[in-house]
C-alpha cells in the first residue's frame, strides 16, 4: 500500500516523532485511508481527500497542516490578505474589527480584503448556471466535498457546479486590479487565510483545469493566535494598511449553513457535517433524490464556522456571523465592478473522478480478491475494534487480500491460533509490537 506520512495534495503531514499511534484518526477517516503500523499512523495518500477529520481528533497534534511559511509574504512589495468572515467571528464582540485590521497591517500585510466580496456576483452566476445544467447542481464551494465526490462518488462528478468558489474569484479580482494599476507580477502577493485544510489542497492543486492566482495559504488557527497575542500585548501600531472592507450580509452569511442555498431559485437544500453528507450523497447516487435543483453540501458541521482551523466553538462562531450580518447592508459598492469581469473568469472545466482502486484494475482479479476478502471478513469478529491497526474488520480483510496485512493481525484469530498451539506467545507479542510499536510493551516491564 502506498502508505505515506503526508497526503495526496500534501496538505497534511503526520509528524512521526509526535504521533503516539493512538488510532483515533483511523476511525474517523471517511475514506478509511489511515492505518497504524509500527506504532505510528500512516496515510494511504491516494485515498485521502484532505478533509482534516483526522486533524480534528488527534490528541497530540501530530497531524500538521502544511501551510506556507508566514515570512514568505515579505517576498512581495504589495501583500494582500484575503480574510474569510469566520476569522472575525473567532473573536468575542468586544474586539473591534478596526483593531484586528490594524494588527493585520502591523504583522506585515499592506492590504486586507474580505474573501466573500465576490459572493453577490457569484450568486447571480449560480442562478444562471442552475437554469441550464443537469439537476441537482452540487455547489463547488467546499473542497473536501468535491474530493469526497471524486473519490467515493465518481458517478456524481458531473453534478458539481463548474463555477469557481468565492476565494478564487476575489483573488482573480485582485490580480486584475494589480494588472490594471500596472503593478508587476513579482511585486504583489495574494495570500489566503484559510479556516480549513481542504482549501490548502484546493489552492495548491486545484480541480477543473485551473491555476490559482493565490501565492500562499496561511493557517487561520496559527494566525488567530498571532493576532490575539498582539491584541493582548497591545503592540503599538506603526504600519498603515489599506482596508477593503466592502462586504454584504449575503457575503458574511455565505460560509454558514444555508448561506448559499437560501439565495438559489428553485428547490435548494443545505447539508452539513461529514456523516450527513455521505448519507445524502449515497441517496443521490441511488437516484432516490428527485426534483431538487441545488445542493449546498459542506463537510463540516455548521459549515465553515466549524472549520478544522476554526478555534472558537462552531455555534458561537455562526452566531457571531449572523449578528454581524444584521448590521451591514444587503449589497456593497464593488458589486458592479465584480459583475463586469466575473463571468469571464468564474468558469472552470469539468472535474474528473479520482478512482480509489480497492482490489485491482483488472475486474477479473478484483472479483477474485473481493471473494477472498468476503470469506476472510466472515472469520473476523465484526466488532471493528481496530486492534489490528485497520479501522474495521472489512478494511483488514481488504488489506490482507492486497497483501498489505497478515491475517494474524486480528487479535481474535490470534487468540484462537494461540489456543490451538499454532503460534507461540512470543510470536503473538511480536505481532502486537509490529502494529503498535515496541515501546508500548516495554514500559510495563
Amino acid at each position, binding site marked *: 500500500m502506498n502508505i505515506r506520512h503526508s497526503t495526496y495534495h500534501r496538505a497534511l503531514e503526520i509528524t512521526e516523532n509526535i504521533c503516539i499511534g493512538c488510532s483515533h484518526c483511523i476511525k474517523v477517516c471517511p475514506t478509511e485511508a489511515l492505518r497504524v503500523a509500527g506504532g505510528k499512523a500512516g496515510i494511504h495518500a491516494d485515498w485521502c481527500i484532505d478533509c482534516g477529520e483526522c486533524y480534528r481528533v488527534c490528541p497530540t497534534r501530530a497531524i500538521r497542516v502544511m501551510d506556507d511559511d508566514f515570512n514568505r509574504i515579505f517576498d512581495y512589495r504589495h501583500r494582500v490578505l484575503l480574510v474569510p468572515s469566520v476569522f472575525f467571528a473567532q473573536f468575542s464582540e468586544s474586539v473591534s474589527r478596526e483593531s484586528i485590521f490594524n494588527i493585520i497591517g502591523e504583522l506585515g500585510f499592506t492590504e486586507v480584503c474580505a474573501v466573500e466580496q465576490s459572493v453577490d456576483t457569484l450568486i447571480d452566476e449560480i442562478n444562471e448556471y442552475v437554469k441550464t445544467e443537469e439537476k441537482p447542481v452540487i455547489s463547488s464551494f467546499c473542497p473536501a466535498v468535491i474530493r469526497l465526490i471524486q473519490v467515493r462518488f465518481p458517478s456524481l462528478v458531473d453534478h458539481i457546479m463548474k463555477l469557481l468558489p468565492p476565494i478564487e474569484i476575489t483573488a482573480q479580482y485582485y490580480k486584475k486590479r494589480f494588472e490594471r494599476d500596472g503593478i508587476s507580477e513579482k511585486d504583489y502577493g495574494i495570500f489566503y487565510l484559510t479556516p480549513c485544510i481542504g482549501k490548502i489542497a484546493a489552492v495548491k492543486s486545484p480541480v477543473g483545469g485551473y491555476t490559482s492566482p493565490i501565492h500562499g495559504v496561511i493557517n487561520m488557527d496559527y494566525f488567530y493566535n498571532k493576532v490575539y497575542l498582539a491584541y493582548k500585548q497591545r503592540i503599538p501600531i506603526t504600519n498603515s494598511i489599506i482596508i477593503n472592507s466592502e462586504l454584504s450580509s449575503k457575503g458574511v452569511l455565505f460560509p454558514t449553513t444555508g448561506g448559499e442555498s437560501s439565495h438559489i431559485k428553485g428547490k435548494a437544500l443545505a447539508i452539513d457535517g461529514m456523516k450527513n453528507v455521505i448519507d445524502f450523497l449515497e441517496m443521490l*447516487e441511488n437516484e432516490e433524490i428527485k426534483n431538487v435543483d441545488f445542493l449546498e453540501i459542506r463537510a463540516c458541521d455548521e459549515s465553515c464556522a466549524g472549520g478544522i482551523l476554526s478555534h472558537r466553538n462552531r455555534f458561537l462562531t455562526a452566531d457571531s456571523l449572523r449578528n454581524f450580518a444584521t448590521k451591514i447592508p444587503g449589497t456593497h459598492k464593488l458589486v458592479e465592478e465584480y459583475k463586469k469581469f466575473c463571468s469571464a473568469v468564474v468558469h472552470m472545466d469539468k472535474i474528473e473522478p479520482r478512482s480509489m482502486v480497492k482490489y485491482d484494475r483488472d475486474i477479473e482479479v*478484483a472479483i477474485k480478491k473481493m471473494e477472498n476478502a468476503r470469506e476472510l471478513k466472515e472469520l473476523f469478529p465484526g466488532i471493528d475494534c481496530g486492534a489490528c491497526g485497520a479501522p474495521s474488520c472489512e478494511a483488514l480483510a481488504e488489506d490482507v487480500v492486497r497483501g498489505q496485512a497478515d491475517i494474524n493481525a486480528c487479535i481474535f484469530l490470534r487468540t484462537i491460533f494461540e489456543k490451538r498451539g499454532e503460534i507461540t506467545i512470543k510470536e503473538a507479542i511480536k505481532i502486537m509490537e509490529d502494529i503498535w510499536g515496541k515501546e508500548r510493551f516495554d514500559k510495563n516491564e
Partner: protein
Amino acid sequence: MHFEYKVEGGDFTLAGYASSQIKKTLKQLGADPAVIKRVVVALYEAEVNIVAHAYRGVIYADIQPGGITLRLVDEGPGIPDVEMAMTKGFSTASPQVREMGFGAGMGLPNISENADSFSIETEINKGTTLTIGINFK
C-alpha cells in the same frame, strides 16, 4: 460472486438496501460509473416493486467479469397484464404508496431501458421473477 438479499413487502424503510450494497460492491470492483448507475437505477426500481406490490422476495445477484445478473424472485399477486405494466406511466400503486414518492409508474419500462437483457415471468397469485442482465462493457 454471489449475493443474496431478502426483501419484505411493505417495508419502505429498508427498500434500497440491496441496491446500496450492490452499488458499494461494484464501486469497489472499479466498474464504470455509468454502468453502476444503470445497475442501481434498475435494481432500486425492481426492489421497490417487491416492497410495494409483493409479500416478500429474494434478490440474487451474480457478478462475473463480463457483467452482473440480477434475479428478483417474489411471492405476490403476480402481474395480470405484463404488456400494460410495461407501458410508460401505467401504475397500480395505491395512493399511500404514491404519497411516499413511489409508484409513479415507469417501473418496468425504466428497468428494461437500463438493462442489456430483461425478462419477466409471472404467475397470478404466485409471484413474479425478473431477470436483469447488465454488461460491464
